[in-house]
């Protein structure tokens, strides 16, 4: 079943195969609502294998591969579908990047990035099945679950 269960968009990006429950978190985390474009969100949509997923459609917006890969932190199974004239013109699965830049805040309250203006960077440690992120500044490692959405 390929028919999307929410209204089709003309131009933009469809983020598909987000694990159910992660859609809202991704919206908040990546501040997708900030650019004023229309966003359609589907939560707990049925999948062909009887499971469920979330889905986000952002109109008139494309993401760089680097930006898209950052989604893999929360949704390693997500796919990015680039839409042009109602057609999928490009489609790929996100992959964990080497580093996550700017979007996360360090959980260490004594980290300099909590006290001074700084662009954060976290190095992704892929070696475990649950990835950890190491702050470029304070050099501490944290599991993904410890990060909060930016305000």
């Amino acid at each position, binding site marked *: 079943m390929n028919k999307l269960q929410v209204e089709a968009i003309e131009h933009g990006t469809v983020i598909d195969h987000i694990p159910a429950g992660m859609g809202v978190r991704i919206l908040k985390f990546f501040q997708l609502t900030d650019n004023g474009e229309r966003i359609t969100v589907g939560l707990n949509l049925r999948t062909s294998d009887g499971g469920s997923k979330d889905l986000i459609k952002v109109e008139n917006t494309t993401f760089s591969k680097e930006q898209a890969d950052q989604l893999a932190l929360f949704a390693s199974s997500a796919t990015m579908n680039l839409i042009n004239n109602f057609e999928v013109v490009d489609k790929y699965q996100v992959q964990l990047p080497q580093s996550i830049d700017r979007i996360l805040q360090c959980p260490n309250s*004594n980290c300099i990035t909590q006290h001074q203006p700084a662009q954060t960077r976290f190095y992704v440690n892929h070696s475990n099945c649950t990835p950890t992120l190491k702050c*470029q*500044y304070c050099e501490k490692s944290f599991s993904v679950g410890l990060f909060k959405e930016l305000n």
Partner: protein
Amino acid sequence: MTNPLFQKDIISIADLSRSELELIVTTAQSIKKKPRPTLLSGKVIASCFFEASTRTRLSFETAVYRLGGSVIGFDSGGNTSLAQKGETLADSVNVIGSYSDAFVMRHPQDGAARLASIHANVPVINGGDGANQHPTQTLLDLFSIYETQGTLEGLKIAMVGDLKYGRTVHSLTQALALFGCEFFFVAPEALQMPAYLCEELDSAGVSYQFSNELEAVLPQLDVLYMTRVQKERFDPTEYQHMKSQFVLSATMLHDVKPNFRILHPLPRVDEITTDVDATPYAYYFQQAENGVYARQALLALVLTEDL
């Protein structure tokens, strides 16, 4: 030949390779043997202590003067107009860096030195950033070990005391792991080496063992690295019990190897009794003195292209 540390930031021990660590240690030794009183003449080094640390600051400033350089800076950031006017660290570093050839800094927050290095046009040397890194302490520890053993290679080393929170112990272990050393971690269970560090050692194939009996491991050791256990971390009876296991006294040294040496980052409180000071194994005061040579070596390398 350009030395590989020329114009490099010294932020974290993890940034330095085995050969760079060796270069610093052998340079420290050569400067200790043959002082270089004019090597940095005409150079201005900024010594900016956003947090007070008297011994580290005096050690760095002595190192600069002994190489013929000059120092500008401050010893407590809270008293400067920088803090009062609310300037960002990035701007302060940018401006002070433009007055100087190198920027030595200490700061109460983790990662401050890394942030500074992004904004400075001159090499930044980390003199301690919060609970994170204090690389020059590790360099002087390595130099002291090298000086007493003639090598850094394949040594048997015990780390004793507060291994959980002790950043000097963590960096020193990581550095020595590059040289195939074998470790004994002697600590109360609650203060043992953190798991992430043991995992690092595991994946590097480094051998280590845990112990809670200091005396039992002494005869095997080349180096004993003692640190302080803070009394506040234990209730009084627990502390008394622990003291008996983790306090080094002269009577325990009957069976040690002739090359055995005891190091301690100082200040010590009561984890090494004073009767140890007179034994040939005590090396902690020389170690403190070595801080100046290690910092001289670092400044010399960072500021001299073909040292």
